[in-house]
């Protein structure tokens, strides 16, 4: 299968600070990828590389076989959506208006939203369980509600690739499971047409939902593979410096970790 993203010998960083010096990876279409690693491991930097927000100092990142830098921004917005880590809005847009902004790349400059745009927005609002908030002002919502609005906006963008940068870190567990479950379902139903790349802090959530995990540490890609292969207790001890045991979750049988609490 042709790679969706690939990078070879990529060096990248911000200003003086280099994060990667020799990163090589391949991401296939249709999978749910989790980016894991301790703080500062390079998760956000990798996402910035994949979004063409950051140009590699050397090496190349390819998207569908072409260098990311050769795509126009507007063209990339039809392919890749992002749920950013930080979200703050200083203007009183309504929930629906913000979700409709996800249709921005699809709409010609002076066009009004059409039937399909409204449909995708409605669908995203319902899927995230915020349909009854749609006329509320985003600035008046709680942090968790705002985060769901941002995810809905990215879903309304209706792109083959969806990236999430710690999108569930400010949510309570019910909404985290709801969002990750929704994404997982979208990914599976599209049968290879939808790829999710999510930086996730919680190892067990990542293990439960991701098809494959990329474990990053200090600017290196340590391992890539299914959760049960990547998140072995000895690896976790080496990278995160915590002790744990693995077990299969009752019911789902998902690979999970139980930490040894001190």
């Amino acid at each position, binding site marked *: 299968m042709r790679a969706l993203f690939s990078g070879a010998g990529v060096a990248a960083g911000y*200003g003086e600070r280099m994060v990667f010096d020799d990163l090589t990876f391949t991401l296939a279409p249709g999978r749910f990828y989790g980016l894991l690693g301790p703080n500062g491991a390079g998760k956000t930097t990798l996402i910035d590389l994949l*979004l063409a*927000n950051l140009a590699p100092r050397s090496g190349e990142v390819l998207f569908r076989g072409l260098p990311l830098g050769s795509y126009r*921004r*507007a*063209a*990339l*917005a*039809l392919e*890749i*959506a*992002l749920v*950013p*880590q*930080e*979200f*703050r*809005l*200083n*203007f*009183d*847009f*309504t929930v629906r*208006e*913000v979700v409709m*902004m*996800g249709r*921005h*790349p699809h*709409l010609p*400059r002076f066009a009004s939203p059409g039937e399909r745009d409204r449909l995708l927005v409605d669908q995203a609002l319902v899927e995230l369980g915020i349909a*009854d*908030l749609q*006329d*509320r*002002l985003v*600035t*008046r919502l709680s942090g968790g509600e705002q985060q769901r609005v*941002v995810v809905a*906006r*990215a879903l309304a*963008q209706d792109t083959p690739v969806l*990236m999430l*940068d710690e999108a569930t870190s400010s949510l309570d567990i019910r909404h985290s499971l709801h969002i990750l479950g929704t994404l997982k379902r979208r990914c599976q139903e599209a049968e290879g047409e939808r790829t999710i790349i999510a930086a996730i802090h919680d190892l067990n959530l990542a293990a439960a939902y991701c098809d494959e995990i990329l474990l990053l540490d200090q600017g290196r890609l340590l391992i890539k593979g299914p959760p049960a292969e990547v998140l072995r207790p000895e690896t976790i001890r080496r990278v995160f410096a915590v002790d744990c045991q693995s077990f299969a979750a009752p019911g789902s049988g998902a690979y999970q970790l139980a930490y040894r609490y001190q």
Partner: protein
Amino acid sequence: MPRSAAPRPASAALALKPPFSLLLAGLGALLAAGLVLAAGLGYIAIPAREVLAIILARLGHGVAGDAVTRAVVLDVRLPRILTAALVGGNLAVAGVIFQAILLNPLADPYTLGVSSGAAFGASLALLANLAWLGGLSVPLAAFAGALLAVLAVLGLAGGDRSYAGNSLILAGVIVAAILSAGIGLVKYLADEQVSVIIFWLMGSFAARTWADVGLVLAAGLLTLGLGLYHGRDLNVMALGERGAASLGLDTARLRKRLLIVASLGTAVSVSVSGIIGFVGLIVPHLLRLLIGPDNRKLIPAAGLMGAILLLLADTISRAMLSREVPVGVLTALIGGPFFCLIFKKKLGRGA
């Protein structure tokens, strides 16, 4: 919908929002009526009907009214009134644009040091008694000063790849502080010209000409046009750097372009009228309460409302007070406390 029946402050506000086209038409009509009325007010009172007849006759290349009245309306009052209205519209539109690209509802042309730059340039020209370009010397010097100030602010803030809101405002404050000291020095050195400089700095529309009208109109159309063209982009900018970029915006380029054009609009305005504050801040604020934050609506509405506001302020200062008060002082006296009110409310809301 039981949950949506719970407290919904937004829906209450929505119910009060007038249809946008009606608001725009209303503002347009108000401005047109205001222009005619204002042209009749002053030392020589002229009935609105006669003002209208003179204007219409002039537009049709005809002649109406007696020579003195005609001269008062066409050569004295209209240039001044139109300049005031255009400067108001310019400053308000520039305010909307600055706020949108800096993601800060409290930003305005002055936060960026544009007006200080223009004021510094103009006071230098007044000090040197420049006359090599005739009447355009002072406006051109102000314009150059404003541009240099913008370039300095952009250069100072542009180190971190994007013009992230806070560093840009900080850079604006620093540059403005330095320029203010510069203006102080010019005033100290000025001796005889000092009163001219001080009066210009306070902001006034006295003795404006049709050349001023043309200059501000050209800058205003450019700012308005580009603002409308990028209206939806400006909405998306509100999502922040990464969010806007992921929706296809080249944020750094868009920000730079709009910053430059809005600065041009401000600089030209300041160069013909001196420092007139708070219009670019208050008008967008009031309009957001009425029609929401959509920049596609805010920009044209702000142009009209800014024009009305400054026309009103100039008319009060020109025709209603026993002694002419510089309009910049008037807007600051009314606008300052108003700004404090908004600021306090914003803090209380925890925004």
